[in-house]
């Protein structure tokens, strides 16, 4: 056995020390810098999992007065409106600033009495659409949200989920 191999054997049997942890920390720093996890991958995964687990239909974005759906506006000086459609359902969403941190989300869906769930990053809120299909969430944080609509007027229909809405 060469001295080199012997040194490796000895080192391999020793306990992990601070230098090892530093080495691993530097490896992590390097990889995080040169090969970062793609932005938004976690959110895309969660959306795909939600759709799969609910067997939901994804509504499609029809019109968008947000200049681009990916734009995360820091300030709204006017209300913005987004429209989605699925096979049997249309959803219109209007966003208005409440204050610096919160946005009011007013919506209308072509299914009066539907159950509307607002999925935020780490929580969800629920509302019922009224007889005319209107619903409102008064306090919505900035971030990506999804609306999940469950209708009760037509039994057997799949829930409908919107793609991410940037608020």
């Amino acid at each position: 056995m060469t001295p080199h191999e012997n040194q490796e054997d000895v080192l391999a049997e020793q306990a992990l020390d601070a230098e090892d942890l530093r080495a691993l920390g530097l490896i992590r720093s390097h990889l995080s810098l040169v090969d970062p996890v793609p932005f938004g991958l976690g959110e895309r995964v969660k959306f795909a999992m939600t759709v799969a687990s609910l067997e939901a239909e994804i509504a499609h974005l029809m019109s968008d007065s947000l200049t681009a759906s990916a734009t995360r506006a820091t300030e709204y000086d006017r209300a913005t409106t987004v429209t989605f459609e699925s096979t049997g359902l249309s959803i219109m969403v209007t966003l208005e600033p409440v204050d610096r941190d919160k946005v009011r989300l007013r919506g209308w869906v072509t299914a009066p009495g539907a159950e509307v769930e607002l999925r935020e990053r780490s929580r969800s809120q629920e509302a019922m659409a009224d007889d005319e299909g209107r619903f409102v969430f008064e306090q919505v944080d900035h971030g990506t949200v999804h609306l999940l609509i469950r209708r009760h007027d037509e039994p057997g229909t799949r829930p409908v989920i919107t793609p991410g809405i940037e608020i």
Partner: protein
Amino acid sequence: MNSPKGENTGARSTGLAAAAARAFALHRAGDSSAMEALVDDVTPLLWHTARSQGADAATAEDVVQTTWLRLVEHSDAITDPQAVLQWLLTTTKREAWSAVRRSRRTVPQEPWDEPPTSDPTGPVKSADPAIATEDAHAARAMWRHVESLPERCQQLLRLVAFVDRPDYSAVSAALGIPVGSIGPTRGRCLAKLRVALLADPSWEVTA
């Protein structure tokens, strides 16, 4: 990954495998939000798992998504929540390896038998000069030493770098490297790295 390295304290000392077990149990009990934090915590590890198998960025992203969807589909088939992290790692590795093999149309015996130079995953971008601090310099120097190690050790260290001690064994097992490779002892790969560092006159390290 946000998890700090080094000495573990509090809840973090339980590691990702335990967090995954808890989240999965809650998920099965009907808590629809239980998996969300887990996706945030584990996705970086899965990303680097796919990349270390030779997947390009687009493939790696597909593989990571597929793996999580499989977990939802097969949630009834996983009997032991404690095994969820390892299941995620193993599935990612297998999916990535198949995807890479399909795209290459050749069948390498084992991914780590390939010459390191053929590794398309290797980080290629140069660091942003604005963040080329002393630490980044040290990190690059460290990476050069890692690249000199056998492929299998590179794979192991890439992943171990993204978890804390309680998860070393799950990572080793998922890569098919015997338990005990790293932790509590330094193990073969970190020992090889230490030998390389000790032989580098520009690197200050004590044996």
